[in-house]
């Protein structure tokens, strides 16, 4: 069904048409659930569920607006481009309100105020402030405010990470000397027994809901809703549940009521889930719970790869024929295409298609963009494989076909290509397996496929090893049937190699 939908989508974008993708009754909010706790992450107990204080905030905000919140996954450092191209209406994911960002998008009033906190290994005694980090390695998230604070401090080697889990893991493993991160992250990750949080507060930061420029109505609605949530105490309740209500917020929101409005139950649940050491039976049961989510990602991976490869085969064959038999302008065009596409990184091509093309009015759905990106890239490789295959068929075959009265095209179609096909089957299968794995790159354009699911699960469960093995195994299992199929086809096509029967 998705395949049919995808081909329709391909058709519609070929015509340059695309519908506005806002959905009625739904507030789509962008975030990166592999970023980590307590912002947005996959519930370690119930991996299909996206949780976090920002998930609670999104739900509360949507309810105030009479809408239903719908989470849209995207890489953290691509959240703003994704908002601008219309993948979702708001971003709620620890996005600090900065002048740079304000040039790109509108921000609501702050929904959370915090500061940066330093975390160091338990045994470390000589780091108190940023200046103590001179000549050392400090880590933080790519594109976060902390990255700039560290750079401004001078003399510090700044290491950028994609997820908080990896960031604090590396600190515990001694690959970096300190982590500078937003205080909520420190609350959740600094509790590792190998680490300790320092009391110092660095910088001041405010998270805002990011909204597209020009979306003034939504901005006003969000601000009004936030004000209501603050006044009613609902917002404080959410933060207390997650254990991240702080004095800065109390001062700013004029809410210095002592005591608690809510128990830090979500924080406790998180700590409990983290601290649990499971027996192998329970561990297996836990993996079994991840399988459906991974399988869903695997289905997307297979759909993507099959569609992309089919297109790449058609494209590659056309390019090969253009290069071999076209008049010189066509030949040159095909050659330039192959060199350009083969010579540049797939990652850049994907970004170009997804975030670059909307600038000139071509806005593709993530799935379409992913299929097209992979097909365009692999088409270039296939072109050379097929060209080699066709060249390997002796010219005498073409002459024999021509002398029987066939046109050049009939000879190619019925005599040359079928023979070349058999030759290129092994390298083309090779390329398909490579594409299957390269399809993991499309997670940069908001596609949640197998590798992205792995990232989300591993970040929320800390289990890079077990889930990693499980995911790798799934890739192998997906590839195997195609390898078998190709071997079978090869054997069937290799008729001339059969021993004589007479």
């Amino acid at each position, binding site marked *: 069904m998705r395949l049919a939908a995808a081909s329709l989508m391909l058709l519609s974008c070929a015509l340059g048409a695309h519908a506005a993708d806002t959905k009625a009754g739904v507030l789509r909010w962008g975030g990166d659930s592999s970023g980590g706790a307590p912002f947005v992450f996959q519930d370690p107990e119930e991996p299909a569920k996206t949780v976090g204080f920002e998930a609670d905030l999104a739900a509360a905000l949507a309810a105030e607006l009479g809408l239903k919140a719908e989470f849209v996954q995207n890489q953290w450092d691509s959240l703003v481009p994704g908002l601008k191209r219309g993948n979702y209406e708001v971003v709620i994911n620890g996005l600090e309100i900065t002048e740079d960002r304000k040039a790109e998008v509108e921000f609501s009033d702050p929904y959370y105020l915090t500061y940066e906190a330093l975390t160091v290994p338990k045994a470390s005694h000589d780091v108190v402030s940023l200046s103590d980090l001179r000549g050392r390695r400090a880590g933080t998230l790519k594109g976060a405010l902390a990255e700039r604070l560290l750079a401004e401090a001078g003399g510090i080697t700044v290491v950028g990470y994609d997820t908080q889990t990896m960031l604090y893991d590396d600190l515990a493993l001694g690959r970096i000397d300190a982590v500078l991160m937003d205080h909520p992250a420190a609350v959740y990750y600094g509790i590792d027994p190998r680490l300790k949080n320092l009391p110092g507060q660095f910088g001041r930061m405010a998270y805002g809901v990011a909204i597209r420029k020009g979306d003034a109505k939504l901005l006003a609605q969000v601000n009004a809703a936030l004000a209501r949530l603050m006044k009613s105490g609902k917002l404080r309740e959410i933060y207390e549940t997650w254990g991240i209500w702080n004095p800065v917020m109390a001062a700013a929101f004029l809410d210095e009521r002592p005591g608690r409005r809510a128990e830090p139950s979500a924080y406790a649940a998180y700590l409990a889930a983290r601290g649990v050491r499971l027996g192998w039976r329970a561990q297996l049961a836990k993996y079994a719970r991840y399988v459906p989510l991974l399988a869903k990602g695997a289905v997307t991976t297979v759909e993507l790869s099959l569609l992309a490869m089919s297109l790449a085969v058609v494209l590659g064959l056309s390019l090969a024929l253009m290069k071999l038999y076209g008049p010189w302008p066509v030949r040159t065009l095909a050659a330039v295409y192959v060199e350009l596409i083969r010579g540049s990184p797939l990652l850049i091509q994907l970004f170009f298609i997804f975030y670059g093309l909307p600038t000139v009015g071509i806005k593709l759905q993530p799935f379409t963009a992913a299929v097209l990106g992979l097909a365009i890239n692999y088409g270039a490789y296939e072109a050379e494989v097929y060209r080699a295959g066709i060249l390997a068929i*002796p010219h*005498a*075959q073409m*002459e*024999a*076909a*021509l*002398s*029987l*009265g*066939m*046109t*050049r095209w*009939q000879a190619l179609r*019925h*005599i040359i290509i*079928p*023979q070349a096909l*058999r030759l290129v089957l092994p390298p083309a299968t090779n390329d398909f397996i490579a594409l299957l794995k390269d399809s993991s790159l499309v997670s940069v354009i908001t596609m949640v496929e197998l590798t992205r699911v792995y990232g989300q699960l591993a970040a929320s469960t800390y289990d890079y090893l077990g889930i990693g093995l499980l995911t790798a195994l799934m890739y192998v299992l997906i590839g195997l049937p195609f390898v078998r199929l190709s071997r079978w086809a090869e054997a069937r*096509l290799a*008729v*001339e*190699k*059969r*021993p*004589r*029967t*007479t």
Partner: protein
Amino acid sequence: MAAAPTLLAKGLHKTFHGQPVLKGVDFSARPGELIVIVGRSGCGKSTLLRCLNALETFDEGSISFGDLTLGRGRDDRKARALRANFGMVFQSFNLFPHLDLLGNLVAAPMIVKGLSREQAEAVALPLLEKVGLSGHARHYPGQMSGGQQQRAAIARALAMSPKVMLYDEPTSALDPWLVDEVFDVMRKLDAEGMTQVVVTHETRFAREVAREIVFMEEGVVVEKGPPARIFSAPKDPRTVKYMSRFAA
């Protein structure tokens, strides 16, 4: 009364990478004739044959068959119209390795003439019988001997009902004991009145079957005539020299 020449080449010139290969060749084959072209390697005899079938272009001259005339340069449409009258047999057979024998025979009739498989097989099966390969319809080229493959290649060409058969050294790639089975098929076709043009080094076949021998050297036709005269009483000193090798 001699029949009007059917296949006619006039003043063919061809240069290959600056090297003249044909230097004004005239050639004709009347219906029912079997003509053998002989000469040293590189004398231009194969090129002449390939020009006749429009597999090679030429720089000057013309080839005509009935009311079809092909001039210099490339003209795919005319080339195809011309080829529709000719069947070509190659030194290295060039059967289609991915198709079985019957598949080789029905491919062109189905693709070019648009025949159904049944119609094409109705033409192909008697031809397999004629070349003595009835039992091999489902065998692939790679499973057959050279002699069988070359007979199959003849049958494949015949399946398009050509008016003239062209052979480019059809037995040169064969073991000596397989040569005769191919020539026997050509003899049979000759008896049926097929026009045939053969480039070959096999003088025995030329002597026995050819209506006319054409001797070429350095891109020109040096001498032509009935085999008895060409072999035993050549006029041109170049022919004399070439034939002397076969005197014994």
